[in-house]
C-alpha cells in the first residue's frame, strides 16, 4: 500500500507544468533521435546530458527529460529498422529481421503499428515491474556491505556485453581500460594525485560526460565517414498508413511473452536491451515458428523483439536506481548524469529522495502513454524526417555536443579531451571492443576502489573479508556462471565459424 501512496506522490511531482513539458519534449526528441539511422539512445542521451546542465534543471526534471528521451529512442529505433533496414542501435537489429520484409511486402503500416503497440506493452510491463521490485531490491541492498558492493561491481563488469557473443576478453579489457581511466585524479581516500601528470585539469579526474560524448558522438562521426557518404537508402514508399487491427491482435501472445523475457533480461546488471530483444526473438521463434515464416515478414517476429527491448530498457532502470549499477549502456550514461548532479543512486536514494525516484516512475507511465499517442498517428512525419541527409545532420550533432561539453566547465581542455575519447572510441569500435564496459569502468571505478579499501580497513588488511558474507559468495558464484556462459558462447560461435569456413 505504501508503494501506491508513494506512486501517487510521484504523479504529483511528474504532473507539474515544467515536468509535463519536458516529458513531451523528451518523448518527441527521443523518437526523432531513435528514428534517425545511426543515432541510438546512448548517443541521444549522451548528447543531451550536457544540455540539461545548460538548462539548469534540478535532478528530477533532468532525469524525467532524459528517461523520456531514452524511452522515445527505443520507440523510434524501430522506424528506420522497418523502413530502411538500418537499425538505429543494437537492440533494433532483431526488428529488421521481420520488419523490413513486412515493409517490402507493402505491410509497413502493420509492422509500424505492431511495433508501436508492442513497445507500449513491453515498456508498461517494465514500469509496473519497476514500481513493484525496485523498492524491494533497494530494501535488500541496505544489507550490502563494502565487500558485497565490490563483488556486485565485478558481476556487472562480467555480465555487461559478455553474453552478446563478442570476444569476452575484449569486453573485460574494455572494463579494465575504464577502471584505469577512473583512477586518474585525486585518490578517493588519501587525496594523493594519481596519473594527473601535473595537469590541474585532471585533478578532478576525467569527467564521465566528456568521455561519453566523445566515445559515442564523435566516434559516430568517424564511423559515418568510413562509408560512402553520399549514399542514402530511400525509405520504402507506403500507400496506406492505416494498420489492420486484427493483425495486431494476433500478435498479443508474442507481445506478452516478449515483454516478460525482455524485462528479466533488463534487470540483470549489465545485460541490457540487446540481450532482451535477442532473447525475446529467439524464444518466440522457438515457440511459434511452426511454418518457417520467421525472417520472411512474420508479424510476431516484429512484436516479440520490440516488446523485449522496451521491457529490458525499463528493467535496466531497476539495478541502476536501487543498486547504483546500471543495467544497460544508456542507463550507464544516465548514472553518469545523476552522479554529476550529486545524486548517488543506491538503496538510500529511495529513502532520501523519494520525489526523484517516484517522480521518475510516474513520468515513465505518463511517457509511455504519450509515446503511444504520439507514435501511432505521427509515424508519417517521423519517417519523412529520416530523409535529413547525413551531411546536414552530423555537423549539427557535433556542434550541439561541443556546446554541451563546453557548458560543463567553460574550458577548451574538455573539448580536446572529448576529441581524444572520440578517436579512442573509434579505434575500439573498429577492434570490435564494446564501449559500454569502458563507460561502466569509468563510472564505477571510484566507488569500486572506495568499497574495496573500506572493506580492507574493516578487516585490517585481511583479504578474506571479500568472500566472508553469503551475499558476496552468491555474487561471485553468479559471476563465475556468467563468465563460464560467455566463454562457452564465444567458443561455440568460433566453432560455428570454423565449420562454415571448412564447409566452403
Amino acid at each position, binding site marked *: 500500500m505504501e508503494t501506491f501512496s508513494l506512486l501517487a506522490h510521484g504523479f504529483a511531482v511528474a504532473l507539474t507544468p515544467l515536468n509535463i513539458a519536458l516529458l513531451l519534449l523528451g518523448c518527441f526528441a527521443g523518437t526523432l533521435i531513435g528514428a534517425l539511422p545511426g543515432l541510438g539512445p546512448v548517443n541521444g542521451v549522451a548528447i543531451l546530458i550536457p544540455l540539461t546542465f545548460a538548462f539548469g534543471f534540478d535532478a528530477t526534471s533532468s532525469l524525467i527529460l532524459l528517461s523520456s528521451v531514452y524511452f522515445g529512442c527505443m520507440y523510434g529505433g524501430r522506424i528506420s529498422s522497418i523502413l530502411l533496414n538500418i537499425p538505429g542501435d543494437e537492440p533494433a537489429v532483431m526488428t529488421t529481421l521481420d520488419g523490413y520484409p513486412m515493409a517490402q511486402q507493402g505491410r509497413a503500416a502493420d509492422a509500424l503499428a505492431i511495433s508501436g503497440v508492442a513497445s507500449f506493452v513491453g515498456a508498461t510491463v517494465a514500469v509496473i515491474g519497476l514500481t513493484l521490485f525496485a523498492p524491494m531490491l533497494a530494501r535488500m541492498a541496505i544489507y550490502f556491505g563494502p565487500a558485497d558492493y565490490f563483488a556486485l561491481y565485478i558481476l556487472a563488469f562480467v555480465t555487461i556485453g559478455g553474453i552478446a557473443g563478442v570476444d569476452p576478453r575484449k569486453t573485460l*579489457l574494455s572494463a579494465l581500460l575504464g577502471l584505469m581511466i577512473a583512477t586518474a585524479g585525486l585518490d578517493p581516500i588519501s587525496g594523493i594525485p594519481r596519473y594527473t601528470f601535473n595537469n590541474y585539469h585532471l585533478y578532478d579526474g576525467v569527467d564521465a560526460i566528456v568521455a561519453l560524448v566523445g566515445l559515442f558522438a564523435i566516434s559516430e562521426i568517424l564511423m559515418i565517414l568510413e562509408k560512402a557518404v553520399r549514399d542514402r537508402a530511400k525509405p520504402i514508399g507506403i500507400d496506406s498508413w492505416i494498420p489492420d487491427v486484427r493483425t495486431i491482435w494476433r500478435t498479443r501472445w508474442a507481445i506478452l511473452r516478449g515483454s516478460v523475457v525482455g524485462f528479466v533480461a533488463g534487470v540483470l546488471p549489465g545485460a541490457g536491451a540487446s540481450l532482451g530483444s535477442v532473447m525475446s526473438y529467439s524464444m518466440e521463434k522457438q515457440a511459434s515458428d511452426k511454418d518457417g515464416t520467421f525472417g520472411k515478414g512474420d508479424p510476431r517476429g516484429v512484436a516479440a523483439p520490440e516488446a523485449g527491448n522496451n521491457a529490458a530498457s525499463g528493467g535496466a532502470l531497476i539495478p541502476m536506481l536501487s543498486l547504483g549499477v546500471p543495467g544497460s549502456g544508456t542507463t550507464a550514461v544516465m548514472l553518469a548524469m545523476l552522479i554529476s548532479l550529486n545524486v548517488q543512486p543506491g538503496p538510500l536514494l529511495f529513502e532520501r529522495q523519494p520525489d526523484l525516484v517516484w517522480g521518475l516512475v510516474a513520468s515513465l507511465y505518463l511517457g509511455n502513454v504519450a509515446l503511444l499517442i504520439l507514435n501511432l498517428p505521427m509515424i508519417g512525419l517521423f519517417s519523412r524526417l529520416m530523409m535529413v541527409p*547525413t551531411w546536414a545532420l552530423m*555537423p549539427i550533432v557535433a*556542434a550541439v555536443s*561541443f*556546446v554541451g561539453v563546453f557548458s560543463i566547465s567553460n574550458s577548451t581542455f574538455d573539448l580536446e579531451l572529448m576529441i581524444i575519447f572520440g578517436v579512442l572510441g573509434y579505434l575500439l569500435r573498429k577492434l570490435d571492443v564494446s564501449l559500454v564496459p569502458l563507460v561502466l569502468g569509468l563510472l564505477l571505478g571510484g566507488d569500486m576502489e572506495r568499497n574495496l579499501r573500506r572493506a*580492507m580497513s574493516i578487516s585490517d588488511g585481511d583479504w578474506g573479508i571479500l568472500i566472508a558474507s553469503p551475499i558476496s559468495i552468491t555474487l561471485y558464484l553468479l559471476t563465475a556462471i556468467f563468465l563460464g556462459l560467455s566463454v562457452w558462447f564465444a567458443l561455440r560461435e568460433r566453432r560455428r565459424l570454423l565449420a562454415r569456413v571448412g564447409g566452403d
Partner: protein
Amino acid sequence: MTVRIAGVAIFVIAALYTWYGQGYTANFGDVLGPSVFPVIVGIPAMILSASLVVFPSGEVHWPDRSHMARQAAALAILVGYALLLLPLGFPLATFLLIAGLGIVLGGAPLKAALLGAVIAPGLWALFDQVLGLPLAFLGRWFS
C-alpha cells in the same frame, strides 16, 4: 594483424600504468593505500592484452585512403574548433565547424556553408540569449 598491434599497445600502456602506479606511497590509517588498486587493474589488463597478441580474434577492415583522408580532415576541423573557439568567438567558429564538416561529409559546399550560416548564429542565440549560457559572440582576436 591490427588486433595484435592493438594488443601490444594496450599491453605497453597497462605495463606503464602498473609500474607508475606502484610509486604512489601509502599513508598511515589507510590499509590498502593508493597503489594497490592500480596493480589489481593493471595486471589483468596486461594478461588480457598479451592473450590478444598471442591469440588474436576478429578482423579489422580499415577504410580506403580517400575515406581516411576525410576522417583526418574531420578530426582537423574538430581540433581546430577546440583551439579556435575562444579566439574566434562562438558563431564564427561554429560556422566553420558546421560548414567544414558538412563538406567533408559529402554536402555541396554552398549548401553546407548556408547550413552553417543559419545554424551557428541560431545556436548562439538559443544558448546565450535564451538559456543564459555565456558564449562569447566575438572572440579574443576581435575584442
